[in-house]
């Protein structure tokens, strides 16, 4: 119980990942879904850094996590721009209303 090993980090990351999936599934606000995506990305990052720490010797995990952070920032920028456009066209941010391509 006193020793913190790899498994504890993996369990925590799995829990955060599942909560992120839950957020993505239940929110109808597009920004809310984005927040869920950020949670999922963070869970993956915890795993990467923990494996990097406990496998020893290299920095591959940390550098991958670094790229994930950069890509998350880029993704958030484009996604927020799309949300703003969505809101301009439909006057709502509810993703269930974005069904104009539906037959």
């Amino acid at each position, binding site marked *: 119980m006193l020793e913190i090993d790899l498994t504890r980090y*993996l369990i925590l990351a799995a829990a955060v990942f599942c909560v992120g999936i839950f*957020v993505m599934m239940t929110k109808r606000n597009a920004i809310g879904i984005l927040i869920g995506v950020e949670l999922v990305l963070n869970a993956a990052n915890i795993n990467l850094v923990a494996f990097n720490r406990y496998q020893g010797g290299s920095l591959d995990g940390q550098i991958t996590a670094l790229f994930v*952070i950069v890509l998350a920032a880029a993704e958030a920028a484009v996604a*927020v721009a799309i949300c703003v456009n969505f809101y301009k066209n439909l006057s709502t941010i509810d993703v269930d209303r974005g069904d104009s391509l539906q037959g």
Partner: protein
Amino acid sequence: MIRSFAHPMLAAPFLVLALWAGASAADPASAAPAAAGVQTATGGVAETILFYVFGALTLMSALGVALSRSVVRMAVWLFGALAGVAVLYFLLAANFLAAIQLIVYVGGTLVLLIFGVMLTAKSPRARLDTKPSQIWAAWAVCVLLLVALMTVIGRAEWPAQNPEAGGLPVAALGQELLTTYLVPFEVASVLLLVVMIGAAYLARQEK
């Protein structure tokens, strides 16, 4: 209950900064082998306590995101989760990554999301409620997924090595980034340029 937790959480960044100062002050000491031995002996308990405290903070904030219904509250809870993850990076000896997490994620991405909230809501506290059946379906899927992940984590044999006390220095990270990972690094910079232009184009005002 969720409301009452929102304010104490605002102290988190100061705590993180204090921890960072402490970690960087302790860094030279870990270079000496004798000091490193002492540090791991006394650091074990502190590390355990810090892991549980900030792991709980991260998980609780993530649940707060899931359970709160207004987007602004969700963003504030996300702030708690991101700060908690930053502290976990410190515990995993990834100091630079923790600083980047605070600067880029908390200072950049989160602010961007809050801008998005403000630009897309008539009232920032507007709520969109989900149908109960959908919430139950999501619960079922997530619990199943969690059980599956736990089973895998519990059964697999991880070749765990005992980590060195200090971890690798930040200089090694920069060296790796500009030698082994030079191509992804350059691609990422081009990507950021494309994203900047693309986001400005998508969100522009119609004339």
